[in-house]
């Protein structure tokens, strides 16, 4: 009886209408609302902000195009890929493939988060729209966002190549169409894959020990892989003398790519045309075949999404808010700690129990010394003069600073992430300074250890004395800590609600991300000038700069705690 009723239900007109029906008006409203929230462009709400955002896009596009053109121009000048002034199509194809793959991986996780874990699902599920409309609206908004992202990144990269290799510029229009089609495939495929990813995530949430093992295993693989690459680097790299073999290897690699990754190569041909010697062939048979495959894939994937993802979307989206009772913790009974220890203990518990936060911090700082080792092994194998030596030192300082300062973007929302619990810190009978600063102790400790290891590695590989390494370490640490204090006070003086933001960066995070690049670049430029005077004094000046920046940051931090945070408004 039950099976019959289910079967009847499945083919019931009303049920089908309810489940798979589509209301365009509701769809449009949802899309408008979600797009405005995602892109933060609304001429009605905030004209100035919207104009600034659009101008930023345009400027970013222009800058990236210029950078891409410059890169290909230099490559062409240096004859890296050909004895003639020629860059084969496989080069931009390889670059775009890597970006597409990374974008695809990002889309899988991003879509999983958006579809099933988004905070506003709680509300959207209650709207008077059928599930199909909501699902398609979400997917469409994500698609639009991905198109914009791919356009801003991929089109400039291709454009630079097209200008250098004299492609007809009307192909840019075709390129845009191509990007849209490819993004369609990317998003639809990602939405399909999001289901097993969701279940895997749920499984790992339940068994966090397994999650930890997997994370450690992945880290081990990556570290091992990079260590192997470091091992492979020869002791001496003399590119200019041994250019022949290197050139042949590059050619072999590119040919291999063209053969074994031919679908991606054909995709590039579809997007910008084929390059036959120096002759550009905008539209070929390959264009037609690839286009048909893309359209077919879109149709197939769309159908699968409607049939597979859509029906279970509501179920999965609402499930993610059900907290299952966790296994009983074996907790020590009542234990009294001193205030400082208790505060640090609490922060440690929160740090470990928030995988997003802890992974970001730990991940950045595990890879820092590894990247530095790889870089310095490469540099060490090159025969550099004094100027080259200075550049190497500067690049090392730059990389350490950029990674360390970028890790502070997590700190820039750490107080907001505590929600109401943070707001009520003002009620406790304790001085606010340590209460606030305790949040930074653990990420700072991890960062400091990583920076110390990196500096020691750098000193060891460059044969620097303990004095230079010590000065470098403290100089960088002061700058890192100053930036961390800046990130903290941006957050606690202007808490953003967890509900109002989905995955977008907060304003504080945006500021921190920008300064995390600008500050290291300025400091390293100064450092380079100082190196030209004297190496030892350069590190002393770096330390002095670090102390000055830290002193100013600390002073502002103290004032803002006292005068803004404690005001509590």
């Amino acid at each position, binding site marked *: 009886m039950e099976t019959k009723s289910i079967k009847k239900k499945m083919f019931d007109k009303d049920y089908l209408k309810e489940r798979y029906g589509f209301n365009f008006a509701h769809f449009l409203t949802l899309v408008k609302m979600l797009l405005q929230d995602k892109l933060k462009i609304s001429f009605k709400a905030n004209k100035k902000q919207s104009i600034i955002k659009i101008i930023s896009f345009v400027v970013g596009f222009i800058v990236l195009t210029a950078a891409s053109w410059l890169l290909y121009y230099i490559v062409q000048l240096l004859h890296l890929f050909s004895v003639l002034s020629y860059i084969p199509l496989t080069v931009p194809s390889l670059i775009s493939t890597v970006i597409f793959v990374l974008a695809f991986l990002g889309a899988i996780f991003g879509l999983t988060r958006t579809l099933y874990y988004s905070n506003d699902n709680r509300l959207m599920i209650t709207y008077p729209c059928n599930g199909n409309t909501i699902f398609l609206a979400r997917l469409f908004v994500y698609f639009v966002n991905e198109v914009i992202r791919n356009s801003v990144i991929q089109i400039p990269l291709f454009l630079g190549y097209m200008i250098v290799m004299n492609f007809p510029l009307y192909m840019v229009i075709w390129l845009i169409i191509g990007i849209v089609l490819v993004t369609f495939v990317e998003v639809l495929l990602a939405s399909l894959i999001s289901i097993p990813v969701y279940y895997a995530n749920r499984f790992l949430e339940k068994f966090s020990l397994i999650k930890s093992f997997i994370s450690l295993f992945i880290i081990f693989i990556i570290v091992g892989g990079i260590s192997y690459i470091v091992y492979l680097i020869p002791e001496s790299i003399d590119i200019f003398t041994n250019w022949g073999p290197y050139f042949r290897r590059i050619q072999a690699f590119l040919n291999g790519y063209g053969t074994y990754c031919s679908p991606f190569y054909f995709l590039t041909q579809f997007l910008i045309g084929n390059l036959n010697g120096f002759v550009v062939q905008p539209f070929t048979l390959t264009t037609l075949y690839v286009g048909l495959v893309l359209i077919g894939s879109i149709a197939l994937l769309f159908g699968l999404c409607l049939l597979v993802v859509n029906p279970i979307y509501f179920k999965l989206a609402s499930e993610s808010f059900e907290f299952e009772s*966790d296994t009983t913790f074996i907790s020590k009974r009542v234990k009294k700690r001193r205030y400082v220890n*208790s505060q640090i203990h609490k922060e440690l518990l929160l740090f470990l129990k928030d995988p997003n936060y802890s992974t970001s911090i730990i991940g950045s700082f595990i890879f820092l010394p590894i990247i530095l080792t790889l870089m310095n092994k490469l540099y060490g194998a090159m025969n550099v003069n004094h100027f080259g030596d200075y550049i190497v030192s500067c690049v090392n300082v730059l990389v350490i600073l950029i990674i360390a300062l970028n890790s502070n973007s997590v700190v820039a929302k750490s107080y907001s992430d505590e929600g109401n619990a943070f707001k009520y810190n003002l009620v406790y009978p304790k001085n606010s300074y340590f209460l606030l600063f305790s949040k930074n102790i653990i990420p700072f400790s991890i960062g400091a250890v990583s920076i110390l290891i990196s500096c020691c590695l750098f000193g060891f590989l460059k044969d620097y004395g303990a004095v230079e390494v010590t000065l470098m370490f403290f100089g960088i640490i002061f700058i890192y800590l100053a930036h961390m204090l800046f990130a903290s006070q941006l957050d606690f003086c202007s808490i953003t609600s967890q509900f109002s933001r989905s995955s977008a960066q907060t304003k504080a995070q945006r500021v921190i991300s920008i300064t995390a690049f600008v500050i290291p670049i300025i400091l390293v430029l100064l450092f380079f000038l100082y190196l030209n005077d004297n190496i030892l004094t350069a590190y002393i000046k770096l330390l002095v700069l670090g102390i000055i920046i830290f002193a100013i940051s600390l002073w*502002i931090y103290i004032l803002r705690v006292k005068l803004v945070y404690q005001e509590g408004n």
Partner: protein
Amino acid sequence: MNFFKQLLNLPTLIIAIVALVATIAFYIAFPNLIGVYSTVFLILLILFLFLLFVPNLIKDNEGENKISKFTFINKIKEYFSNKENKIALVRQIFALILFFIFLTRFFLNHDYLESVVSMESDILSPVEIVFSTFLNQWWIGSIILILINEFVKSEIFETLVKFISTPILILSFFLLFLIIPGICGDISLETLDPRAYLMGAELGISLAFVASIWFKNHSFKLTKELGISLGLGYFLLIIANFSGYIPKIFFGTSIGELPLPLDLNWTHRVYIYILILLPTLYFVLLYRYDYKHRRYFLTYISICVLFSYLCLRRYEIFESPRSLQLHLCNLAMFIIPITLVFKTTKVFYFTMFINVIGAILAFLMPNYNEGLGIFDVSVIEFFINHLYAAFMPILIVLLGVYERPKMKYFIYSMVGFLIYYLFILVWNTYFGTDYFFINSNFVADKLGDWAEDIFNIEASFEIFGKTLTFHPVYQIIFFVVYVIFAFIMWYVYELLFKIVDNLTLLVEKNKIVKKKNNEFILYLKSVRGKSMKEIRKEDLKIDYDELEANLKIEHLNKRYGNAKKAAVEDFSLTLEGGKIYGFLGKNGAGKSTIIKSIVGMHTFNSGKITVCGFDINHQPVEAKSLIGFVPDHYALYENLTGRQYINYIADLYNVSKKDREERLKDLLPRLELEDKIDKQIKTYSHGMKQKITIIGALIHNPKIWILDEPMTGVDPNSIFQIKECMREHAKKGNIVFFSSHLIDVVSNLCDEVIMIKHGDFILRTSLEELKQNNVDLEWLFLEKTKDDEDIKDNNLEVKGANN
């Protein structure tokens, strides 16, 4: 007669005698300078007497003037009908005469000191060179101080004239035989340079002004503020009066390696550091003053620096079209003081948008000749010019003398820039000059071949027999790029203004907070009759458990941001221990605001809150340790277990292990959380989260337990448990103060109820009284919180706000 009696006092007589004796002595010692000393003495005497006598000559005819049909004439008449204004006008005229004489002398010829290198001179010894150099500079600074003082009504500037100009000028008088050679050269020659006599006149007039000021106010007393201003005055005298030839005098010209453009070696960087440090220092020093004094000081700096910049440029700048000061950065040195004196908005913003970029670029790419030492005069003069042209406009805006730039000022500036550009273009083309580098390939050369190619596109034509050659494409692009650059730089300025504004706001707030803290400390010392150290020692020994529960709110005022209406206005309340108080009011009445003010979640505009005698603002740690707070939305660390959370809270309140064990043993079964305490809080239901919050608020046994709508969303069983906790806590002699919308709960639970409306206290009564008078609490609440009626209730005894 009175005047002469006043004049013939002892100090004046002594000064006059000393001056006369000195003059005679110098006549004898330096016969060549007889004319100069005579000039000084005569002018000093005549002008001094005149300035003293002027008030007696001028009549006060305020209110007597005939009304003219022209408004501005009436305004002028009204202004000068006042005697003080007339006297001021006379003094200003003489001040301008002084300045004119100084200008004439300054531009007439170059200073002899320009030719001194490494302290070597034919006519002066090294010691004399030192005195001559610095006194000549400070002489200029003193004259400018006198000039400014006569045009402003300022006690500070009068003090500066009294204590800076006076000693400098007196010293100059006695060392005139050193100062004059520094300007005029050898004074032993038969014919003395006419500039010497002009200097004599300057000195005479300046001394007369200074003497008249001392005569009017001969007090030596300096307040702390005036003392600080005096220190600033001396600092500015030294820094701003620094001619380009001074380093060469002491160090010569062969020291150091001059950086090539874009080299940015250490010597170049030192100048760039000064570009950052000097304006910062000026800002910090001038920030303490009000608007008008900032303007006066900036005027002083800009005029002094102008003359420092002009050290190499005298009469010859007017001789030919090539030597005019028409480069943007050169113009800036003149424009800046003019805009400060005359408040010409359009001209100022022109210099701000256009000059600053040019100056900064010049700073980074200096264009002086190669092969010069770092102390060469042209190098120093170059950096002085571009240093001040770069930062002065920004500093002026930062200090608020001119407002932050707006779009309309940008447009005016671009129009002005266009006019300047066209003028310079024609001037350069006609006279063969290269002001602003638009007629040569100076900039194109740095950019590369592509720029040179654009530059080489020429257009020539003849006019009045002269061939004029333009580079139209290059010159148009130059203009457009400069305008775009100016626009982009505006964004950078805005960023800087924002940062500085935020910092200064913090500093201002900090001053206010420090002042309030100091006032509280004084109050505490006066009340307790002890020093702060003793008070702190005493407070550490207090056993908080022995304290009596007491909460006092006095005249609390709270306004959010710039809201028109205060959220809470003049609210006062006193609560004693052993009772449960219900706090009623409509939504938005101010209940949460008052509660948050009590627990320290935000500050309030005025008033006082004391918790068991501890002020919540000035003794927050002590006061908060006596409060337990249950907010309307639970605020928990959901990743922690209940026990971990409670342990953490107990550690914050320094609860002993024994006490927390006892209290947990009591509370956990009562609130039915025994089996959940070791699970993560995120697995709790709403009611359980509320209950764990309650345990957190009670774990330290607070004297005052405050709950903000604790029953919201909680099941009846939990409500009962919470009520029992509240009754028990009050029985121990503590205060339980809670706000709620559940009238029934309040009427059954509370001993007293307090009602507020729109931030104002309206009623306080005991539930017992209400019951005795058969008054329904719900009815009373609805009546009392109505917006359009005053209830006259003769049957109720209402406790007043100040009980």
